């Protein structure tokens, strides 16, 4: 069991879904590195492929989807894309923790949290179940909950914020050091959101984790992430340190996203909505740039050539217009 934060290298990952119209890519040729001990945020609209991306880290893309190409190299584990059967099952939970959206019912409604914790322990061959329960109570107490009471509760007896904390506990209790949080604050009220984010940050630092947060909410990423990756139409269009990306976005999509956020101060009309709509699995262009239909900087080359992700220091941007200007 790894005792320290693992690094993760996603390389050339392509995930396709089988549809009546053939196999369509939901994630296309994505490369992303999670440095050990960092929090990375992936932002994108619904349908941008960010959840598929998150599931790929556990090699858990649900049929009719499948990983068609690429690798997900995790320190201390190997390339999970090649994992199957028992080996894959044991990696999940024990090495990689996955936290569901709070509004999703991630627990069996007919069993108490404690019983499901024991099921989890037995599934992973934990010999010291008492120790596991103690660890779970400590984690819950750390997150401000009465552990004994929560373990004795059914899912329907817990509030959204409590469920989310239980989800985090279940992801960490087996001592996983890589954690994926899928929309961790969606459907929670503002105060609970802030609480959960604080917990994510603190637990991340205390336990020495490598964390990936998937969200559509730039505010969440700004709050917790060291690095930020922006997804659009199954492609990673821009990534870099959170402050830099938010402070001086380069890709026209990132810029559009940020100008679309209404400010707390100033006129509401200052927020400018991004024109057009995001592509779906079926409408993603087969060639050329995925964003060109909505792009203010569109050029001829965008119709035919998919822009490469070009690194510039710690920033990576996939855009003909931006990269031409930078390198000219």
């Amino acid at each position, binding site marked *: 069991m790894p005792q320290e934060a693992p690094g993760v290298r996603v390389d050339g990952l392509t995930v396709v879904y089988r549809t009546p119209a053939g196999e369509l890519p939901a994630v296309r040729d994505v490369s992303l590195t999670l440095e050990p001990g960092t929090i990375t945020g992936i932002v994108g609209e619904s349908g941008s492929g960010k959840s598929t991306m998150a599931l790929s880290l556990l090699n*858990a893309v649900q049929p009719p989807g499948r990983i068609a190409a690429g690798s997900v190299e995790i320190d201390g584990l190997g390339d999970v894309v090649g994992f199957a059967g028992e080996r894959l099952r044991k990696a*999940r*939970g024990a090495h990689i923790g996955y936290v569901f959206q709070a509004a999703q019912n991630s627990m069996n409604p007919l069993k108490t949290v404690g019983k499901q914790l024991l099921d989890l322990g*037995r599934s*992973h061959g934990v010999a010291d179940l008492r120790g596991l329960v103690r660890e779970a109570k400590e984690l819950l107490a750390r997150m401000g909950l009465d552990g004994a009471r929560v373990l004795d509760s059914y899912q329907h007896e817990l509030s959204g914020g409590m469920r989310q904390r239980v989800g985090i506990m279940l992801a960490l209790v087996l001592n996983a050091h890589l954690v994926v949080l899928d929309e961790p604050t969606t459907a929670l009220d503002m105060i609970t959101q802030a609480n959960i984010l604080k917990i994510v940050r603190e637990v991340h630092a205390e336990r020495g984790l490598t964390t990936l947060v998937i969200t559509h909410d730039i505010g969440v990423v700004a709050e917790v992430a060291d690095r930020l990756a922006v997804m659009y139409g199954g492609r990673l269009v821009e990534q870099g340190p959170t402050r830099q990306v938010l402070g001086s976005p380069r890709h026209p999509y990132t810029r559009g996203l940020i100008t679309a956020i209404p400010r707390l101060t100033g006129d509401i009309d200052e927020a400018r909505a991004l024109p057009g709509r995001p592509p779906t699995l079926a409408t993603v262009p087969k060639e050329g740039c995925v964003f060109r239909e909505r792009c203010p900087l569109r050029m001829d080359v965008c119709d035919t050539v998919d822009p490469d992700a070009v690194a510039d220091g710690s920033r990576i941007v996939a855009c003909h217009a931006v990269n031409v200007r930078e390198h000219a």
Partner: protein
Amino acid sequence: MTVIARRLAGHLARGIVMVLVVATISFFIIRNIPGDPIAARYQKLIEGGASPEAAERATAVMYGFLPKGTLWQQYLDYMSGLFHFDLGISVTNPGTPVTEVLAGAAKWTVLPVLFGTLLSFLVGVILGVYAAVKRTGKLGDVLAVSGSLLHGVPQYVLALLMGAIFTTLLPILPSDGTADILYEPGFNAGYIGSLVEHATLPVVTYALASYGGWILAMKSSVVTVLGDDFILAAELRGMKRSVIFRYIARNAILPLFTILALSLGLLFGGSIFIERIFNYPGLGFLLIDSITNRDYALMGGAFLLITVAIVVANILADLFYSVIDPRVRSTEEVS
């Protein structure tokens, strides 16, 4: 515990009211069916020249009793009889109390139908899980089609078909009755063997007829649960397949218990077509007989038995639910 007790008390009170209402309705409906055999007999004797007293005496001797008073009077007598578990006297079986007749027929219905129901429930539920898990493959298709097919074929067609196959084309099973008269009724191998042999066709036909419903219901229930987030969550937490399977099974079977409870209640109605076709003297058979013979007391008794059985089955189902589904339990505690 007090919650359950309070719940049970409420159910019992409602159940008793329901039984009384049904008894009242069935009493008046039954008395309004034309063709009263006792009145007919009495009429015949009068027409034949007997004095009213003699005719009355003769009719009373023949049927063991004579209805007297107005309809209201009869109704009150009937209801007060109910409280003493006295359902009156059967006309088709002169002198025998209805309760006795019902008990006699019940033994030919309850065990076979119970066995048939549980058999089809078990097989249907297990195959339903497979049909759901393998729904994209050939096996799933075959199972689902078998379910729809058997669910769609009427019971009497199935019964006639089974009868034709196993008693005529391939005569390995007896076609009617409960046991061969060769054997002395009692606890001996020959008699019991004959009982089983005679019960096989009704039981199997009953099981086949209800199997389709179970497999279809279980399949759709499992498919729903498979799409639930907590199943994916359990998978992503690396839970063992056997654990996940138990999660699926327990969640999917919940809605089926309501249907099972209802069919166990209906069990006391017998299976009219199957009992008729295999000449099996159960409750369904008795019910048809009582209607043909205008045996009011027996009819009323049979209806009442079915009502009570369904009410009791519902109460049991509800109590059972609060044991197996924690969500039902806690809503009760809150209110």
